[in-house]
């Protein structure tokens, strides 16, 4: 993992935020494109072994991206990212939420706000993403969901982790 040292994942349980920082060896315009064009998002947004499938993309303030993360088994998890503010190629904010394949939001699940900032670092680009939940209760709710329907987890991985913590 050549780039691990550049990856930061900070949890603030008190503020119910997760801050993710990462540096990429590419210029800012290219990294911005990867975040904002669905044909590029489809090529990286879902963590392995899932893949991303876009149903519709309207990248402008008030528009949204409707996408699914697809498991190898074919199981689909639909989400939508509603864009609130866009300042090319510096920054955007969006509301992330769970929905069905028509884009109808699941009102039972909380949404998170994404605050994404792109910065030049020499010839490279640093991306900082702050994911905020409205409250500790909201965060707790998605944690519960994550434990039941975790996209990337396997029970084996959970077992291993618990073993190291016990």
């Amino acid at each position, binding site marked *: 993992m050549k780039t691990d040292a550049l990856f930061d994942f900070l949890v603030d349980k008190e503020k119910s935020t997760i801050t993710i920082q990462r540096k990429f060896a590419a210029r800012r315009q290219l990294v911005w494109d990867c975040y904002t064009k669905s044909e*590029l998002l489809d090529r990286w*947004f879902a963590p392995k072994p899932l893949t991303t499938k876009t149903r519709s993309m309207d990248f402008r303030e008030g528009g949204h991206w409707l996408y699914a993360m697809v498991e190898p088994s074919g199981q689909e998890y639909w989400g939508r990212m509603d864009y609130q503010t866009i300042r090319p190629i510096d920054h955007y904010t969006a509301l992330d939420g769970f929905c069905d394949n028509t884009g109808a939001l699941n009102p039972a699940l909380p949404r998170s706000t994404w605050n994404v900032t792109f910065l030049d670092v020499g010839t490279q680009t640093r991306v900082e993403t702050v994911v905020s939940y409205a409250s500790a*209760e909201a965060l707790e709710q998605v944690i519960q969901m994550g434990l039941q329907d975790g996209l990337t987890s396997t029970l084996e991985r959970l077992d291993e982790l*618990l073993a190291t913590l016990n």
Partner: protein
Amino acid sequence: MENHSLALNNVFHALADPTRRSVIARLGRGSASIKDLAEPFGLGLPSFLKHIKVLELSGLIASEKVGRVRTCTLKRENLAAAETWFEQQRLAWQSRYDNLDDLLTNLKGEESEN
């Protein structure tokens, strides 16, 4: 899973208070008596005992009385339920960004060909 959910409700309530977080941090280094735990906070014992009660109800700590001394111990498995979710998120982002690295490398190749 039911147990996880129940634990999490209480875990997040318990962790929402700085005094209780300090107690958890202290107990992470080993068990301690209530008297020793209370000392750094300058709270009256009744107020401090309320925090201990919340932590016990959350399942994050257990206490045992031997003679006149009550000793508290951290129960890591309930803290672990929340940690597990964060760990899953971290792994998901790491994998996502590894994908992005690969994509950027490919795109730069495509650019120089054009």
